[in-house]
């Protein structure tokens, strides 16, 4: 799983990033093939809600943990440095249909997952001894991954959506340390904000 989180996901994110940064992946046509490895559980939506609740319950503490771990000036300049000013963040419309909401959720989770992967990678370099932050970032990424699986299973099994175009955030690999920390803090701030909305929407 760590291999997936640390290697495959960033690679996919990078690939997505290069191929269509800012452009959502197209939804699989209705008649497209949609198959899962085994049948999806019946309580899938309940699981999605629980996952959102799980993420929501830990989002704030993750955000605090992150900016605390970054040190000054982040804790005292949250509004400036950690404001949810994330460009190209996938939109979400809570009043949409379940399918639309699930598609938008899928895009958000994919975006967050890719960004969280980047942040995790950067933090292991920038704060190699912040093991608590690392594990929390990894755990959050794992939950996002599970949520993504559930949403896809739901879309596939019920709405026959086998593929959704997704967008990803900017690549931070070329940025300086502060920018990496700032982008990560802004993303976690956005994440805390969005996940609360999502948990409320489902």
């Amino acid at each position, binding site marked *: 799983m760590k291999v997936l989180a640390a290697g495959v996901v960033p690679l996919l994110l990078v690939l997505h990033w290069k191929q269509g940064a800012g452009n959502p992946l197209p939804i699989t046509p209705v008649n497209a093939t949609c198959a899962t490895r*085994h049948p999806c559980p019946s309580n899938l939506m309940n*699981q*999605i809600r*629980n996952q959102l609740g799980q993420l*929501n319950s830990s989002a704030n503490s993750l955000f605090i943990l992150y900016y605390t771990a970054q040190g000054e000036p982040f804790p005292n300049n949250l509004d400036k440095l950690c404001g949810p000013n994330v460009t190209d963040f996938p939109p979400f419309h809570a009043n949409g249909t379940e399918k639309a909401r699930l598609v938008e959720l899928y895009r958000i989770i994919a975006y967050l997952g890719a960004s969280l992967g980047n942040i995790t990678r950067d933090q292991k370099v920038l704060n190699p001894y912040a093991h608590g932050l690392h594990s929390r970032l990894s755990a959050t990424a794992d*939950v996002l991954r599970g949520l993504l*699986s559930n949403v896809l299973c739901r879309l596939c099994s019920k709405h026959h959506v086998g593929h959704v175009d997704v967008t990803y955030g900017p690549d931070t690999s070329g940025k300086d340390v502060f920018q990496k920390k700032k982008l990560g803090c802004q993303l976690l701030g956005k994440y805390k904000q969005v996940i609360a909305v999502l948990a409320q929407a489902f």
Partner: protein
Amino acid sequence: MDDYHVTADDIFWKISRATVSRDQYTVINRTSSSVTFLNIPLINVLLTCNIRMFGQINRSVYGIRIISGLPPEKPENLSCIVNEEKKMMCQWDLGRETHLETNYTLKSEWATEKFEDCKAKRDTPTSCTVNYPPVYFVNIEVWVEAENALGKVASDHINFDPIDKVKFNPPHILSVNNSKELSSILKLTWSDSRFRSFITLKYDIQYRTKDASTWNQVPPEDTSSTRSSFTVQDLKPFTEYVFRIRCMKEDGKGFWSDWSEEASGITYEDRPSKAPSFWYKIEPSHAHGTRSVQLKWKTLPPFEANGKILDYEVTLTRWKSRLQNYTVQDTKLTVNLTNDRYVATLTARNTVGRSDASVLTIPAWDFQATHPVTDLKAFPKDNVLWVEWTAPSEPVNRYILEWCVLSDKSPCIPDWQQEDGTVHRTYLRGNLVESKCYLITVTPVYADGPGSPEHIKAYLKQAAPSKGPTVRTKKVGKNEAVLEWDQLPVDVQNGFIRNYTIFYRTVIGNETAVNVDSSHTEYTLSSLTSDTLYMVRMAAYTDEGGKDGPEFTFTTPKFAQGEIEAIVVPVCLAFLLTTLLGVLFCFNKRDLIKKHIWPNVPDPSKSHIAQWSPHTPPRHFNSKDQMYPDGNFTDVSVVEIEANDKKPFPEDLKSLDLFKKEKVNTEGHSSGIGGSSCMSSSRPSISSSDENESAQNTSSTVQYSTVVHSGYRHQVPSVQVFSRSESTQPLLDSEERPEDLQLVDNVDGSDGILPRQRYFKQNCSQHETSPDISHFERSQQVSSVNEEDFVRLKQQQISDHISQPYGSGKMKMFQEVPAVDAFGPGIEGQVERFETVGMEAVVDEGMPKSYLPQTVRRGGYMPQ
């Protein structure tokens, strides 16, 4: 094959150096052969192909190693658990042994992706822990694949949400707080899993008092939702409680967490919930009109004190008028009271308040206690000593139970407890020990004072006596023994002595046991063998066993008590009687005995001439009618001497001589030398035989004898006077020459037979054998003509013996003669008989009479 010039028929197979049966061979062609094994007994064997060449030489052509085994069975009972903050672990059952190297792989996947396989370690092939963190709320499908050289098989797939397999970490109790407002509650606060923020948990809370071992359960419905605190109610004031808690998913899926670490808290104080137990004891007081009363009470147990007792307040009321208050921190108070009735009250106080008052009536000194409890029983049960009783008919306020250890070494120090008036069965709440005898007293307490106490003894647990009774004999008889023993001291009894057993045996005999009731202290062993050593010991038994005492030995006597006396006494009596009879006999025969052993020796110096009364009637010798005038004829011996017997019979002659002397002596009027003339004149009645005897006596050794038989100068003596001559004149020659004594033949020729020479012989010489009868026997030999007379004589003599037991001695007769003249005819008769039997001894009246004081037979007589 061609090189060896063999065919397929020459091929044979070996497995582990053993030739395989040809039944299992199959010849494929001229150069090929196959072998078939239906069952390989070994899992690793060597199979070789061999040929038999010319000359019976065997050669291995080829060999292979056969490894046999089984394909894996389908793993069963696959299950998984997710410990919080740890990775998922699954386990399964392998099935049968494959005997081959078999790999077990745990496979897992989501609906959209597959996870890395988890390969079970060789040493733990039944479980595997995945190496990725669990992701909750995403169903995962898990199965196990078993694979070896013979095949591959997969278990059933299980699909679950890891959140339903989770075992949370136990909650952590943060605090246990009490409330001043409510002394019966404690609030428990804890922190638990981070899951509590997004899933619903339920809790299991348990509590107990500090010293208790069992837990109380908070109702599950009160803790079926996520929470971080809980208030436990209905607790006891001022009591320390211990709590623990665990959690799991509210829907029951998953596993209970482990119990949290225990945490304790103490409820707040409350006023004492019960009045203390209150009792008193009147101590001896020297002051007149007052009593020293020790009031005592029990400290309240914590569950009744409800806090720390600060002090006790005692009030004493006499006749409802005077009130005395005491504040005591101890549990006893000694006061001097008058002989009046008092009412005492007691309350206990803690920081919150006071208890109810305990009231005790101390009756006046002349109060008579009545109405005791009945049917008092005490018995051990469940390691405590229970006391049970029947309540009196009167209403009882409460009961006081007192008990103490009965001991011979230490005094009875009572402990006590109080029970409500409704109780009639309780156990003693003290530190009772086993094998001790407790004296239990139950006293009912009425409104006006205590009732009569009742006592009973009991043991918490009995044991065998630590020492056996020491038996000893109280009395040992020939066939029985009375054993006795002392009651065992209460300190060594260790229980109620139910019975004793007496074991007794002889050295070689079997042991016999006798059971004896415990109330006895002695026992009689019967049917014992006399003169036997017995070993006896004694065992005392309680309900729990017995203990032997020391062995005691005793020996039964050979004779029973009094048996020896019963034998000895009669023997002694018989001996004594015999001796007495002998003495009496000897006394009666003393004269004869005396003659034999100590004859009378007349003292010549004291002799004098007897003076006879002139009126003494003459005596006639020839009148046959006067032979036995009164039958008084005694002590006569007759000796026959055959006429043709030319033997001199010296002994008989001596006897005759002795007889004559004795006769003279016993007649009392035999005369000595000097008195011979007087004698003959004064005693005309003396027979010729006497005269003859006198003739003989003249030659005897009697030296002196004087009889005065006539009155002097015509004076008539009133009694016969005997006088012993004091003369020292020497004996006559005839007396000194007994050979001069001539026996005269009987001239009576009418007998027609040879005349017998007869003479009298003093009978004393015959007394040793047949004192009288022999006389008659010999008398019968005297003459047949006078046989009739002899019969009469014999009869007469017998009658004399009967009528005169003392008359056997002539001397005695003569002593009596002077007093009674009637004896005179008897003497005459005797003389006449002598004449009748024809005594032919030569009588010389002129010869002085003399006699031998001692028989010749005795010999060695030396005249004085």
